[in-house]
């Protein structure tokens, strides 16, 4: 079978919509205001929400009803897809076919679990390590990859996809999420914004201002801090002296919750609760997802310079996939054969995306100038003409 790029994107979106609209849409009608986690788990006491532990044991009473084994299977497959994409990108980067990029390895549950808890019309405002959350929410995967390949087309999601492009300046994007969700609130729409950022980002002044504005204006914003323990080489312990990042919410008058970010169930359940709070006008929530960046910071980094292999090994045991496989095995879904088949199928999909990526042309000289303003200025026109002249001469 050969699918074209656009067909592929369509399939992705449909696949995504299928899960969303058959399950989530229904569930969100059932009022999820049970309030089981937020304001119940005290970050000052380091209480962490965990439903599925590293060994694959789950707390049955806390498993959200909508996370049926079938749904979990789909989410597992989604997660696994992004891990494979990641691995492929790395391979391509090593052979010069991809630019520097930030790996997601280890953070799949934090993203897929939280994204699954919101609606298609909700916004995602990412940092730069959110391939799973962004693409699950409809950002075309080929575009995401093109961005890291160094092609501006990579920052142009389709009109109906409410996902901002990658934001590189650390900590800056949460303010946009606050503004976006505030605008929705002003128009009395029921959409919310979910913003992702890292542990390092919490040190930036912009984080503080975003949290503070959200608190004062009770904006419908869910802040998801993926605490992957490092900001490049800087460990979490050197980033801030507070015991948890979740407790930082106390400074802004709204709740913070510590969650096992490698637990798909916990991430879904808490985000869902936070999203419904936001939607109901109860204001923002800060979620600290405890996770780990299993890979280097980016492909230009070498993590062995600053952390011990034992530490990585310890966290490998907490990998979100291991526990999910155990869970799905118990549910009679996962086994080695299933896994082999899955990988085979997904490999085809990865191949297809990469073909689409590699056949996408770079931006043209015109493109460099044409999008700065709604209407190009006279001097940009002249500069464009100059560039074209030079390029012609240089040939």
């Amino acid at each position, binding site marked *: 079978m050969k699918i074209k790029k656009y067909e592929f994107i369509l399939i992705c979106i449909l696949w995504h919509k299928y899960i969303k609209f058959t399950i989530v849409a229904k569930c969100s009608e059932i009022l999820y205001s049970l309030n089981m986690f937020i304001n119940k788990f005290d970050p000052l006491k380091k209480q962490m929400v965990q439903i599925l532990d590293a060994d694959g044991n789950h707390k049955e009473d806390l498993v959200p009803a909508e996370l049926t084994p079938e749904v979990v299977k789909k989410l597992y497959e989604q997660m696994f897809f992004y891990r494979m994409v990641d691995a492929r990108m790395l391979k391509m980067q090593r052979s010069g076919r991809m630019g520097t990029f930030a790996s997601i390895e280890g953070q799949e549950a934090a993203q897929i679990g939280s994204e699954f808890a919101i609606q298609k019309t909700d916004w995602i405002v990412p940092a730069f390590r959110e391939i799973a959350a962004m693409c699950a929410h409809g950002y075309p995967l080929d575009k995401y990859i093109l961005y890291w390949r160094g092609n501006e087309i990579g*920052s142009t999601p389709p009109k109906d996809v409410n996902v901002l492009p990658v934001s590189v300046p650390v900590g800056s994007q949460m303010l946009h999420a606050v*503004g976006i969700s505030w605008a929705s609130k002003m128009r009395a729409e029921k959409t919310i914004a979910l913003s992702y950022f890292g542990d390092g980002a919490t040190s930036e002044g912009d984080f503080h201002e975003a949290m503070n504005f959200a608190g004062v204006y009770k904006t419908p914003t869910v802040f998801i801090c993926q605490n992957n323990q490092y900001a490049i080489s800087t460990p979490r312990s050197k980033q801030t002296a507070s015991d948890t990042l979740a407790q930082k919410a106390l400074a802004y008058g709204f709740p913070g919750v510590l969650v096992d970010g490698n637990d798909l169930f916990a991430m879904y359940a808490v985000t869902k609760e936070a999203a419904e709070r936001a939607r109901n006008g109860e204001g923002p929530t800060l979620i600290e997802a405890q996770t780990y960046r299993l890979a280097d910071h980016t492909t230009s980094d070498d993590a062995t310079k600053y952390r011990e292999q034992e530490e990585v090994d310890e966290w490998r045991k907490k990998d979100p996939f291991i526990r999910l496989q155990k869970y799905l095995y118990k549910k009679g879904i996962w086994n080695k054969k299933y896994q082999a088949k899955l990988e085979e199928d997904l490999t085809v999909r990865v191949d297809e995306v990469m073909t689409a990526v590699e056949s996408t042309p770079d931006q043209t000289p015109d493109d460099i100038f044409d*999008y700065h303003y709604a209407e190009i200025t006279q001097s940009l026109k002249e500069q464009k003409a100059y560039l074209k002249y030079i390029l012609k001469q240089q040939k």
Partner: protein
Amino acid sequence: MANQTLTMVQSINLALRREMRSDPSVIVYGQDVGVEGGVFRVTEGIQKEFGEQRCFDAPLAEAGIVGTAIGMAINGMKPVVEIQFSGFFFEAFSQMLCHAARMRNRSRGRFTVPMVVRMPYGGGIKALEHHSESMEAIMAHTPGLKVVIPSTPFDAKGLLIAAIRDPDPVIFMEPKRLYRAIKQEVPEEDYFIPIGKAAVVQEGKDITLIAYGSMIRECWQASQEAKKNGISCEILDLRTISPLDHESILTTVKKTGRAIVVHEAPRSFGAGAEVSALIHENLFHTLKSPVLRVTGFDTIMPLPRTENYYNPNAFRVLKAIELVMK
């Protein structure tokens, strides 16, 4: 509709109200702009007319104001935010440079940031330390931004309406020394002064004085003096610093053959340098004399008691005119 005689503070207020009335997505926020109506009273009465939903006080955080406005603009609103004094804008500069200025280009127009950042700038009212900065060149050097500076109540209204309707982020710098210094007839109805276009505000034939904001008045005074010596000055009000209106600049200088650029900001790497370089590059062989600059010094603005030492004025412009005409 009738014309009113208004100060710049009033004409800006009028522009805000008119746009807020016709476009429900226009909202106004910033430090103390709500109940108090802003420290210069530019937003006086706006909260009362439009309610707290559309005109409100922000926490004391410039990056927060600009950063949330970017988000709002992306999601369908038209925020017109106030930075209390341009000297504090740099707290928000990173948001402006990294995001507001770039979102359209990077997303190829999928996301746009139609917002206005208003701020009083410049000296001349004996304000406190850090309250008299003129840093327009810094913003003008930032690709993706537009920088507009009015010099009269009439222009302020027309340019602000244009800024609010502009589909891209506009930095709107208000010469605070002119806030209440001049009154002018301002029509009640809408009008629109295009961004990116300079205007010849006085015709002349011997030399062109190129300026903007508060310096237009100084140029005008200098030209009155110069006239006594038989020198006829054309005055070009840039109105927009970026994108700079090359055509108007070159047209007037082609005509007069001489030019002086005047601004309050420090001399080195200021907007005057760009205007000067531009003219020389294009009209080197037409020029009768090199373009001179009359500017602030490369110093920190002095405190109130001696700020007059700093500020360029009609006398300094006149001296430069004499030099160029020699």
